[in-house]
């Protein structure tokens, strides 16, 4: 498989990368881990004229907690997320389920967020936990909430000339728990169905904040807002989670395809929501 012709710019700084992107115009594309972009080029479904390699830029590879946030730089690989002890809840649960070990060694969390593949795992997780995407363009830095960032299948609200430099994910201050249940056909497969759950509990044990999002069952990663609203203020219980699961199943609009029927996928959403919320609650109660 041979990609079509392209030029390569190796950026040494964020400024250089942003400038190169502006110079390249529409035919320019950032290259992070290359785990989505390179296969697309080899299959000739993507034909960038200029690749702007950001891998040599210093200072983008940290994953750490500061100021009440988990900060993830643009060059943090999925494998770094797996290995990090700064992660929590749904983030920690999801990391080992992203792709396979080889892909995780190169692919980046920010690249995955920027790519907005509706079958990608990270955007669901971040929709559940909440997160800000930090973007830098010619006119400086701005923050976009993940819910505003994810715009559609393979499209985001990131500007043509902006680079995602990092993610800022709020770290819950009280008791919290999360999970990511993913049904995949084999290791390295995108989700057939996945459910991200995030719960925070107050002192009485009631749910004070809830996040629930679905992967691969809608045209984009989907936050189940009505289920989240239902959960907040309630004591965790099997019945409550079953009710939330019905809302999640109703929010899913899966299609029949080679992975399975729509009816079955909806059933998996239901089951995984129940199990995922229960796992999140259990983790929160033990925290």
């Amino acid at each position: 498989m041979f990609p079509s012709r392209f030029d390569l710019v190796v950026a040494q700084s964020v400024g250089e990368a942003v400038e190169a992107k502006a110079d390249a115009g529409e035919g320019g594309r950032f290259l992070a881990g290359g785990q989505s972009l390179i296969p697309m080029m080899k299959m000739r479904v993507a034909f960038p004229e200029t690749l702007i390699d950001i891998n040599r830029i210093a200072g983008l590879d940290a994953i750490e907690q500061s100021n009440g946030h988990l900060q993830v730089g643009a060059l943090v690989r999925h494998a770094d997320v797996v290995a990090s002890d700064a992660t929590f809840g749904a983030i920690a649960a999801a990391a080992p389920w992203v792709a396979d070990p080889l892909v995780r060694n190169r692919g980046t969390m920010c690249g995955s967020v920027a790519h907005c593949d509706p079958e990608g795992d990270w955007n669901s997780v971040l929709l559940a936990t909440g997160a800000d995407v930090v973007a830098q363009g010619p006119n400086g830095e701005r923050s976009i909430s993940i819910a505003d960032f994810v715009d559609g299948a393979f499209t985001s609200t990131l500007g043509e000339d902006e680079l995602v430099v990092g993610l800022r994910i709020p770290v819950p201050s009280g008791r919290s728990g999360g999970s990511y249940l993913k049904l995949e056909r084999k290791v390295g497969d995108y989700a057939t169905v996945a459910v991200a759950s995030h719960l925070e509990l107050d002192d009485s044990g009631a749910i004070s904040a809830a996040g629930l999002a679905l992967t691969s069952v809608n045209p984009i990663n989907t936050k189940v807002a009505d289920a989240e609203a239902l959960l907040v203020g309630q004591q965790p219980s099997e019945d409550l989670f079953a009710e939330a699961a019905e809302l999640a199943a109703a929010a899913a609009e899966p299609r029949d395809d080679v992975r399975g029927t729509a009816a079955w996928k909806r059933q998996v959403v239901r089951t995984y929501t129940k199990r995922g919320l229960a796992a999140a609650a259990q983790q929160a109660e033990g925290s």
Partner: protein
Amino acid sequence: MAAPTTPAEIGGIGHSVQRKEDARLIEGQGNFLDDIDLPDTLHMAILRSPLAHARINGIDSSAATAIDGVLAVVTGDLMDQHGLAWMPTLSGDTQAVLATDKVRYQGQEVAAVIATDPYIATDALEHIVVDYEELPPITTPQQSLEEGAALIRDEKEGQTDNLAYTWETGDQGATEEAFAQADRVVTLETHYPRSHPAPLETCGIVADVNSVTGQATIYMTSQAPHAHRTLFAMVAGLPEQNIRIVSPDIGGGFGNKVPIYPGYVVATAASLLIGQPVKWVESRTENLISTGFARDYYMKGELAVTDEGRILGLRVDMLSDQGAFYSDAQPTQFRAGLFHVVTGSYDFPAAHINCKGAFTNKAPGGVAYRCSFRITEASYLIERLVQTAAYEVGIDPAEMRLKNFIQPEQFPYETATGFVYDSGDYPTALRTAMNEVGYEDLRREQAEARAEGRLIGIGIAHFTEAVGAGPSRTYDIAGLKMIDSAELRVHPTGKAILKLGVKTQGQGHETTFAQIVAEVLGIPANDIKVEHGDTDHTPYGLGTYASRSTPVGGAATAVVARKLAEKSKKIAAHLLEAADEDIELASGVFSVAGSPDRSVTIQDVALAAYTNLPEGMEYGLEDVTYYDPPNLTYPYGSYIVVVEVDPDTGVWEVQRMVALDDCGVRINPMIVEGQICGGLTEGFAMSAMQWITFDDDGNCIGANFMDYLVPTAWETPRFELLATEVPSPHHPIGAKGVGESATVGSPAAFVNAVIDAVAHLGVRNIDMPVLPDRVWAAIDAAV
């Protein structure tokens, strides 16, 4: 298991000698097709049809031809001028090399670009303009045989429908009688879906035709280089002495490298016309969408049984999806391979098998993917059917099998469809596997789990294969008898070279076949070089597939080594001044009967063969044997799988897999176990995830490894291996072949296990792959 008769330093039969080929392959010193880099090589890329069925109204290649670095764009019209637009298949059909009239499947070869580098060749494809007129695609054989279906093979004289072949065997009258006597008839309809061998190395060729001498040196990924040389000579009209096929290291074949593909023909023609080497290496997608697929059989099986669970007869109706061309690689006499081995391991008098195949707008191929000519489908059907019958009659599936097995004393056993099984002890095999897995306890656990709402299933498959084709009176491919050969040359220092007609693709021939010689002559296996794949340097043979290498090539090796042993004994007698008939040979030492201290070694004899001979004897120590097997060999095995099914999602997981194999004498037990683990993995793959399917427009779904799911170590269950060893009575060293047993036998065990978990709900069939949504739907429909 019999103990080895040679010491470990010699490494004869029964020793787990380390694979001699591994170091080279693991350290990157192998020589695969794509490693071959001749001076002035040109590169070929193929334009393939995006549509499943369309008329070609014209091809404009002018823009592509104008690109710098492009030497030629080859179309069907150009091939036609040389009489090469079509080629014969191994099943007596013809197949398009480059399309002239229509495209008949997505991925079909339409044109080829020859350029100075592969990037330019691939770029140029985008500049070829093909004017397609879309025709209705046909994606199932049922659709294909409907009245009024579009005619796919309209170019074929006398072809008025989409029927590819019909074939029947067995005794219809006797079978009807058996069914009339039955207490009940048990029916199972099931589809064995289309699969693809997906070798890690895709197919490729470097064709190097010398414009002065006409000598064509063709490096190609071939499982059957000698047969391919002859077919090249017959198809392309090249004199056979001018064709040398070299099949280098092969990164997996599994049947996919048996056929001759259009790309080979076009690259060779291009090299001939241009006078420079032409290289073509398929991409993964090209390999998956266009080269030899496997299976795609729709089967209906009926068993006539008594209330006690005795099988009286079998009736099978099979419809195969052949794709656009009927190009199964199979023995000429048989239209559906050896599918008629479908009577399995059971003793009953009557069977009738009715087969037909249909053309569809899908890739052709029908190769035996790790399977001896459609035996996988047969074994799957009978093992699923016997389990269904057990449920219907109300007896345990293990008991059902034990009740109907061919008994050890019945061998040689002639089946209702004419195979003569050589040897076996099926009850011992099944009972041994049942003991290992703890069958009775498992049945109890299953009942307890059910009471708690958990679904546990236990699936058995007891398969019998027919491999090692085969006897020349019955088996030929395109007229070439399925014999095979070995040539053995012992050098003066006692080291040897063994040349084979078969060709390894990873099976370990360089080790195993050396061990056969080591066993007979006592030359250490590591002193024997095994050569194969180069038709100028090895004797003729039909190649490696259908588990035939050990049954046929291995037999030839044993026989040629014995010939040299006979000559060696005479030389030893001369050296020891004893009578020929008093010489005994054991582990490389020739001694005189009764006085064991008088001895010489095989190394002494080898030197003498070139220096010091008895009066009148010809110099040298070498010979060649062409082996025509008297019968096929019949390996078998008992597999038991335990699964748990999640009733809420249909997801199932394997908890245990016990696999007992009997492949006769095991030459290298480690290699045998490696083959079995690989085969079990592929069997699991087909049962769980690995299939090629198509949408209604005929688009192939499964065109890359994101869509075509080959399991990794992560998904693959752990296997517990067991063995019994009943030798083949007619094979020179009692071996039966094992390369394919596990792929053949295991899918039914996995599927039977899932069905067993839900059988109490009335579920009798879920087609492969047993995807969780199918399981969930079956449960949902049943409750």
